[in-house]
């Protein structure tokens, strides 16, 4: 419609090879419309990202005093379970010895704990495969072949440093950002 109305003004039809002012105007209009659509769509898309109140809930304080050697507790952080494990001397030794073992996601045990606080292993209790919660936080549960955790969904084994050793998971259990706020108190997040 616009084309036929504009025909008398456009350059004589010489096979369409010539660039006219109208081509330029069409291009600018289309580009302007694309930017406009993008500007309208982005708020809709971004509204699906975590809201301010969800972001605000992102730190937790945990008292470690009641956790005995060999015990582990589960705390909630950002809606996810976090495993806090009080490791025994053998478990630490084993984790350190395995630093040179076959690791799909190589990382030393020392890099996964705070210096001087090797007995406290704090990891997000979410299997890095498809997000299940591994079992083994209670000493009565199956802990897999490496004595850490075992994910029942698709059979991933984690060691006493929370590193992936066997199974489909691609990465180690994540270490959340945390800091000691005293000898037996940590703040996660």
């Amino acid at each position, binding site marked *: 419609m616009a084309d036929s109305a504009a025909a008398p003004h456009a350059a004589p039809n010489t096979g369409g090879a010539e660039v006219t002012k109208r081509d330029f105007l069409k291009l600018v209009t289309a580009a302007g419309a694309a930017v406009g659509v993008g500007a309208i769509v982005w708020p809709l*898309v971004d509204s*699906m*990202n*975590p*809201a301010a109140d*969800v972001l605000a809930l*992102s730190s937790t304080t945990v008292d470690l005093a009641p956790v005995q050697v060999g015990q582990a507790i*589960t705390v*909630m952080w*950002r*809606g*996810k*379970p976090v495993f806090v494990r009080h490791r025994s001397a053998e478990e630490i030794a084993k984790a350190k010895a395995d630093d040179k073992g076959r690791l799909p996601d190589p990382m030393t045990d020392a890099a996964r704990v705070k210096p001087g606080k090797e007995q406290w292993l704090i990891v997000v209790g*979410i299997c890095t*495969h*498809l*997000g*299940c*919660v*591994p*079992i083994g936080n209670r000493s009565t549960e199956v802990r897999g072949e490496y004595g850490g955790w075992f*994910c*029942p*969904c*698709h*059979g991933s084994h984690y060691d006493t440093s929370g590193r992936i050793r066997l199974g*489909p*998971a*691609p990465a180690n259990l994540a270490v959340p950002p945390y800091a000691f706020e005293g000898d037996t108190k940590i703040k996660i997040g």
Partner: protein
Amino acid sequence: MAGLHKSEFQNPVINWIDSRLPVFTMLQKEYGVFPTPRNFNYLWNFGALAMINLVIMIATGIFLAMNYTPHATMAFDSVERIMRDVNYGWLLRYVHMNGASMFFIVVYIHMFRGLYYGSYKTPRELLWILGVIILLLMMATAFMGYVLPWGQMSYWGATVITNLFSAFPIIGDSIVTWLWGGFSVDNPTLNRFFSLHYLLPFVLVGVVFLHIAALHITGSNNPLGIDVKGPQDTLPFHPYYTIKDSVGICVYLLVFACFVFFAPNYLGHPDNYIPANPLVTPAHIVPEWYFLPFYAILRSVPDKLGGVLLMFASIGVLALLPWLDTSPVRSARFRPIYRILFWVLAVACVVLGVCGAKPAEGIWVVLSRIATAYYFLHFLVILPVLGKFERTLPLPESISRAVLPTGGGGPLPGGAAAKPMEKA
């Protein structure tokens, strides 16, 4: 007056409307006298059944939504309230719940019908692709619907499936956070799934409309897979196929009713009657039965990204099927080798379904790998090559020649051939 449609309806009210908006003429043309191949078997019922099923799902869904609360702390209880307190709430929910399974049964049969009789071949490629889009939309809708009761399987199913997207490098984690609206599956996730679960069925209605519009341009395929050559090969849709579809609908409703009234939870998982708990994963997570073959493909690959890509590819390959199958003959009736391989594919899909329900260990991993390999081999290697080498059987001259006892009254086109049609 110029512009008014010349309606042939006698009833003055219908005529008045039809002249201004020719919906009655359209219905008469598309569903009354619409010329339809005369040799359909009962497998051609399943398109109509799928349509009925979609209507049932939307109707029950709208009334369920009136009593459902999409909130993480209240969803589970509101579903239990529907089951116990709402008048006929149990019926609405069981029909909706089993209706999802019925929908997939019907659509899978509809698709295998298309595979067997070559309904995806030219000129019906776009019709087939629209069907694949319908399947994808159905899967998304069914998955989000399963999350809404907020039981253990809902929660962990949602966790596992949304985590599939974390397999993509770099942007994966941002996508998952965006899908969740938080750092785990939680109330924002439930809210958006409810919103989308309500929206997508209406998108489905739109795509189904396009599917049918495309069908009415090309016309239906038929068990012989040969083109309609004239009026002697067809019957008017009404009353011949309205009646045939009605018979199928009765049988379908019978099966549906058996599930709803005698085994309403047979196809579900008991763990979904445990309220969602973000701290405990059930020992054995399985998706609903209709996703099991795809789940088996996902798990058959030891690599996370590889498994995810292969699972999506298993549906993507269907969209390419019209160009992968190089044989000019549509119906498997005239393709002796393809007919066997069709059943091998069917068995492979069932094996995948069984493997998907079993824990990923031992023999089940081996079996699901073999079946996955065959699935892709079938579409990507065998079909392109087979079309070039297979010796197909001779095709009949015409539909009427092949199916009418009198032989269709000879090769006469036009008026003479219309007579035997009326006798038959």
